Structures are given as C-alpha cells and as structure tokens.
C-alpha cells in the first residue's frame, strides 16, 4: 500500500469518529498532514511481512544429542557476524533437532563459504547440517 493511500484511509477513519459535519476538505487536510508526518519519520509505513531486502537463511541441524551443539554453531555464526533471528531446538528420543533462522545480511563470509564452515563444524561435532535460503520454506508452506 503506498504512503498516500494509507494516509487517506487513516484520515477517513479518524474523521468517521468525529462529530458529524466534517467537510471533505478536512479529509484532504488531515491526509496531507499525515503524509508529511510519515515522510518526516522516514520509515516505510506499509505493513510488509519482513523488512525489505532481507533474505534470511534456515540452518537445520540433526543428529545424536550431546553437549555443546548449540554452542558449536552459534560460535561459527558469531565469528561470521551472522545474526540469529530465531532458534527452535528439541530432543526426541535422544535425537537432537535444531532449526535456526539467521540473517546473513552483514555476514563476513559468502553464502558458499558460510555453508562450508557450518558443514565442517557439523562434521566435527558429528551431526548433519542443512543450510539454505528461506525461499523454499516460504513458497512450499504458504499458499
């Protein structure tokens, strides 16, 4: 939704709750004020699902549970300056399953190098590692 239309709709809602008799010109005036306000704030008012330009990655780790697995991977991510956005970890019958959503925007490593580093760490701690951009997760599970 563009800025102006959103402002217009907000103005309409505001005026609907005011006493009768607000002139159509009042809507225009309030809209103009709101647009100025939004521009001054310098932010995108549109309510998108995620900040634009951010392409997240999904890191999945599966294997036998033992101590230090979460640490092993968060260390690699921290060294590469990759931000952990979300983490979900569980143990089923001694099997360890961890899913991390990470933001590689300011990563010091390229995608390929980061993937290699994570896979290598997976080999060291004896777990399986899957790394991919979130594109598939998003597309396959949302209609």
């Amino acid at each position, binding site marked *: 939704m563009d800025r102006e239309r959103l402002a217009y709709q907000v103005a309409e809602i505001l005026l609907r709750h005011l006493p009768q008799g607000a002139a159509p010109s009042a809507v225009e005036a309030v809209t103009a004020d709101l647009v100025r306000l939004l521009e001054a704030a310098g932010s995108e008012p549109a309510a998108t699902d995620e900040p634009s330009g951010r392409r997240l990655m999904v890191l999945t780790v599966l294997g036998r549970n033992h101590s230090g697995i979460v640490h092993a991977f968060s260390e690699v991510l921290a060294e590469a300056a990759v931000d952990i956005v979300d983490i979900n970890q569980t143990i089923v019958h001694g099997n360890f*399953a961890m*899913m991390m*959503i990470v933001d590689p925007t300011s990563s010091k490593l390229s*995608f390929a190098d980061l993937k290699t580093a994570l896979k290598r760490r997976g080999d060291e701690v004896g777990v399986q590692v*899957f790394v*991919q*951009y979130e594109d*598939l997760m998003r597309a396959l*599970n949302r209609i």
Partner: protein
Amino acid sequence: MDYTRREILETLRMTELEHFDVRTVTVGVSLLDCGHEDPEEAGRRVYAKLVRVAGPLPGVVAEITEALGIRVANRRIAVSPVALIGTRAEPGSYLAIARAIDRAAQEMGFDFVGGYTALVHDGFTQADRALIASMPEALSTTKTLCSSVNAGSSRTGLNLDAVRLVAHMLKETAYLTRESGSLGCAKFVIFANAVEDNPFMAGAFHGIGLPEVVIHTGVSGPGVVCQAIRRAGPCDLRALAEVIKRAAYRITKVGEILGRQVADRMGVPFGIVDLSLAPTPELGDSVGEVLEAMGLERTGACGTTAALAMLTDAVKKGGVMATSAVGGLSGAFIPVSEDAAMIAAAREGALSLEKLEAMTSVCSVGLDMVAVPGDVSEELLTGFIADELAIGIINHKTTAVRVIPAYGKRVGESVSFGGLLGEAPVMDLRRLSCEAFVRRGGQMPAPITSLRN
C-alpha cells in the same frame, strides 16, 4: 519462528530423502538469425550464438541450486527447429550444424540439446527432407544432440509419408548405433501436436512463437508423490487426489522459484514450468511405483489406465496452483526404460505394449523409451507409430513415440543405455501385417473436431 518445525523438516524430507530434484533447466535459444548459404558458416554462427547466450547457464544454475538447497539433474538447450535455419537444403549442410551444436553444448557442460527438428505435419519442405535424411548420421556421431519430427496435428491430420520416412530412418539409426544398444533411437522422438515450449528430451525445441531466449524448467518428483500416497494409507479416491495435488503443488513451486531466479540472473524472460512427473531409473523415483502405491499389484494390471488418468489430472490441478506459467507437456511420463517399476513390469510380462498404448491416452506423452525387436519391418514400425499419433490427433493432445528397434535383439533380451535413459527390455510387437494400409501413404485428413472456428 516464521516456519514451524514441521514445515522445515517436511521441506528437508522432500529435498533430501525423497529423490526430489528438478529434472531440467532448459534454455531456449532462437537460431533463426544464424542462417547462411554456406553450411559451415551457418554452423559457426550457431556455435557463437549458443556460447554467447546459453554459456552462463550452468554456472548460474549451480549457484542458485546451492543457495536453495535443491538438485538439478540436467542442464539443457532447446534450439529453433534446425530445418528452419536457412542454408543449402542438403543432408551434409545440416550435419555441419549438428556438429556445431554438439560441440558448443559439450564445451559448456550441457547434458542435452533438442531441436534437430522438422515440423512436417502437413507436408515437407526440401529442408525437412534433407534434415530427416541426415538424422541417422547426426544421431550416431553426436553425443548431446536430440532430434524430433512433428508428423501430425489435430488441425492438419497425420502425414503418413513422414511416419514412413521416420520408420526407415530409425532402422538405419539403430544399425549405426548397434554397438551401444541402438542408442541413437533414444535421442529421437516423433510427435503429434508437438508443443513449442517443452523442456524435456528428446522432444524439446524452441518454438517459432517464443522470444529470442527463454528459460523453462521441467520438474520431476515421482518419489515425493509416492511417499505422500504411502503416508496417506487406505483413503478413498477423493482424499487420494487431494494428497497428490498437495505433493504436485510443492514440486511445481520449486520449479517455479528456480526458473524465475535463473531467468532473473541471466536477464532473460522466464517461460514455463513443465509440471510432468518425470521418473528416473533409480529405485523410489518411479511413476510405476506411484501407480502401485495407489493399489495395483503391478503396472499393467487392470485399473492401471484409471489410476494413471487420476494421477495425471491431480498433478495438473496441484501444479496450476503453484505457477501461472504452466506449459510444455505437463502430466505424467511413462518412459519404460527410465522407470524401475515399469522395467520390472515389462520384464515380467505384466505390462504389454497394448496396455502401454491405452495408458498413453491419459498420460502426458506417449509410447516412450520402448524397445522392440530389431527385425521388425519398417511397415510394422510405421503402423505402430501411426496408431499412437492418431490417439493424439483425435483427442487434441500431444502424443509421441520414442521407440528403439534394437538391432540384433529379440524379445526377452534388453538394451542398456545407462544414466537417465536406463534399461529397456525388448517388448513383443504384434506381427500381423499392416503393409497394405501404410503403403497407401499420403495425408490422413484432419479430424472433424479440427473445425472449431
């Protein structure tokens, strides 16, 4: 978390455990500006254009599949029907172009190139005749080149003379490639109602209505559908259709995402996703296995055509939800040699050529990768092909025949091609004569349903 644990694990199960891959990313390239009276010069132009336009594709595909966490089995090129590249209409001319295409493809790391093609559904040009005459040599001396002929359509009827010419050509190709199980014939397909945007081989070509360059993807995924059906257990057919549709949605979506990203990166338009279930000889990646999971003892049993009809329809319905760019052949493929369960069924005698023919009336293509004894006559082969093409012409669908008259082989033996082409048991063909019929020659008129305006 944006995704549930289950969603992430299901996606991984599909890509890691269920043999899921995208069968092909195919770049379509127009060669209509490469013509020259001197065939060697035409060949040089073709080579230069392919290297310039298609060259970056394998690298781009490798990078994107790595980022998405999926596999792509083949990288392919579809070129304009070579008979339309203006050059001297002699068989030798087209061989020069064939070699140029093959060299370009191999150097750039492509698996196959389709488009050594003549469109003759309503008669031949001199170029068409020359191209078809050159096919045995082209198919036996190149590695990646695939070839096709469109011999009929629902608007024009069937060019029986073209079918006879093809039958003759196939026998010669089978002989020339006898050392490798008559492999040359596996790289050729004859169509009725060929489509212009098919990314699959051997029948891909870059249609004349398409843009200069375009990216198509062809998905695979029988393994994903098969596992979904098994997990669903003994539900009724309506519920089963829903299960298949959901699986097809996911498979197609992957093809769509990949195709669009590749096209974006290459700076060319995205064409279509062909949402066909394409099997591989690998166990667990078989359309026959899907039919068996639906409840048949063996592919070829009574109920096979009904099960395949439902499967094909459900795949289309699920697929169209995933992309607005459905095209190509889109359905289910039943190539005998490329499908472990079909190979087994044919070997046991459960699956006959007649049953296979019936199945092709509801699948997406036709009699695909079937081997017949090497001693069948040209006339018999002509009748065999004409039957299949007639099904397509009357029913307004694409049908095709990819048959290997395996030189020196008899029923009970088999020919092995390796890789995606698999292994074909030699199947029995009825030896009753159709000679007097096919020798009549000429054009079988278009069906009454062609008059739609």
